[in-house]
């Protein structure tokens, strides 16, 4: 059985490698056949060459951006978890803050980024705040949905067990909300990188966003492609990390629990 599972896994990996290989071949052929100038659309070989030539600067920029994104995401996690607990304790607060959150979400981060740079300077902190703001809404909304998913029967059961409100939050509402929280985190983790990059676009001294912007001034399209691939890869990796964590922590969510929930 395990061997069969491994075979399926290898087959899937091989399939992805084959698809990527096909896409790269198609890209290479298209650029050479139509003689597209490299400042408009470089070949995969040129992109790879730029990556090898400048790997140290890419590594440094990626580390900067990822650190900003991780800090932003971490702060968003802490704040939204506290907010989630407050939501669980007070329905009125949830109703009022939800409206404010929707209003906040409708403001594009690109409009806020210059303000953040003015307030917090062009350094590390303004990118962290940009990343935090981008992650905040999906995480807060997921906590809110999770809290609403708790059935009255479950709450009543806890009251019959003489649980205090905080115990209801700790033993029922938070665990029950975790599947929703992870759905939000799957969106928020890649978004945190986007938030940091947008912050770097407006004013920075390092990071992937700063590199993209500076390469664009000199029409170094191949370098810009490298940056884009790094960002895409970082997004995929962050998503995969969240999925793995979700499988470990919320192992019970895919099981047949309909009868257990009182729904």
């Amino acid at each position, binding site marked *: 059985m395990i061997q069969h599972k491994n075979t399926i896994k290898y087959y899937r990996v091989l399939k992805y490698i084959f698809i990527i290989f096909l896409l790269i071949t198609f890209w290479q052929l298209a650029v050479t056949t139509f003689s597209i100038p490299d400042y408009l659309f470089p070949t995969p070989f040129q992109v790879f060459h730029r990556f090898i030539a400048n790997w140290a600067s890419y590594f440094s920029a990626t580390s900067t951006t990822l650190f900003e994104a991780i800090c932003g995401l971490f702060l968003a996690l802490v704040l939204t978890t506290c907010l989630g607990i407050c939501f669980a304790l007070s329905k009125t607060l949830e109703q009022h803050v939800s409206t404010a959150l929707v209003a906040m979400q409708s403001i594009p981060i690109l409009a806020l980024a210059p303000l953040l740079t003015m307030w917090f300077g062009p350094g590390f902190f303004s990118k962290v705040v940009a990343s935090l703001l981008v992650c905040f809404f999906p995480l807060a909304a997921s906590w809110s949905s999770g809290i609403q998913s708790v059935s009255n*029967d*479950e709450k*009543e*059961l*806890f*009251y*019959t*067990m*003489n*649980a*205090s409100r905080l*115990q209801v939050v700790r*033993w*029922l509402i938070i*665990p029950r909300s*975790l599947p929703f929280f992870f759905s939000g985190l799957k969106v928020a983790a890649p978004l945190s990188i986007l938030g940091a990059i947008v912050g770097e676009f407006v004013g920075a001294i390092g990071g992937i966003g700063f590199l993209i912007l500076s390469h664009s001034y000199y029409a170094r399209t191949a370098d810009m492609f490298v940056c884009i691939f790094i960002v895409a890869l970082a997004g995929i990796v962050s998503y995969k990390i969240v999925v793995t964590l979700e499988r470990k922590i*919320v192992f*019970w*969510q895919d*099981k*047949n*629990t309909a*009868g*257990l*929930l*009182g729904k």
Partner: protein
Amino acid sequence: MKEPVLQITNVTAGYNSSIVLKNLSLKLGNGEVMAVMGPSGCGKSTLIKLIANLLQPFSGCIQLIGYDMRSIAVMFQSPLLQPWLCVETNVALPARLQGKTIDTNSLLTAVGLSGFEKRYPFELSGGEQRRVALARALAQSPSILCLDEPFTGVDELTRERLFELLSGILYNQKISCLFVSHNPYESVFLADRLLVLGRKPTTLIAEIEIDLERPRRAELMKTQQFYKFVTLAREYIHDST
């Protein structure tokens, strides 16, 4: 009647402005098992909620004699187990919430689930999940146990085993029990007294003393005496609808 532990006097209750129960009075004796039957929507579950203090009556009085609210445990229609907790932790939950520790092994043995400690609820059958819910209710060391159609959705054979198990536990531990049910077989098998409620707004329309011997075994359901009580209960329920 035995000395009462629960007394409901002229209770009128419902939701918002709609009255479900009207001027209902009843007494539950110490160690007595009382079944409440009636048509759907007649307020059987409302009665459980009133006793468990999950709902306040519009008027009337619910009195616990010699006990407080902590002596009441409720088992709901669905098992409501926490899927992220193993069986052992689910059973120990009420004690853990009170900062106490309990011997979960003896409770699980009592409900026939010894060896299931580390399993998760999603690894159990419907009948096993209900046994865990029963063990969790017993973990509160209740003096009064309220059951709201506890065996709904369980197959016939498992249900009969659960009747026998519950009847034995209630008899051995001398727990007073009030349970609501749709099933006359279940009600007659478990109860010392059976109350039949009428349609909404609900009043008590019949009270049947079930003087079958205890402890009760599944074979009892094949006797003519048992069947006589089931027929009587059915007639009253039929009249109430």
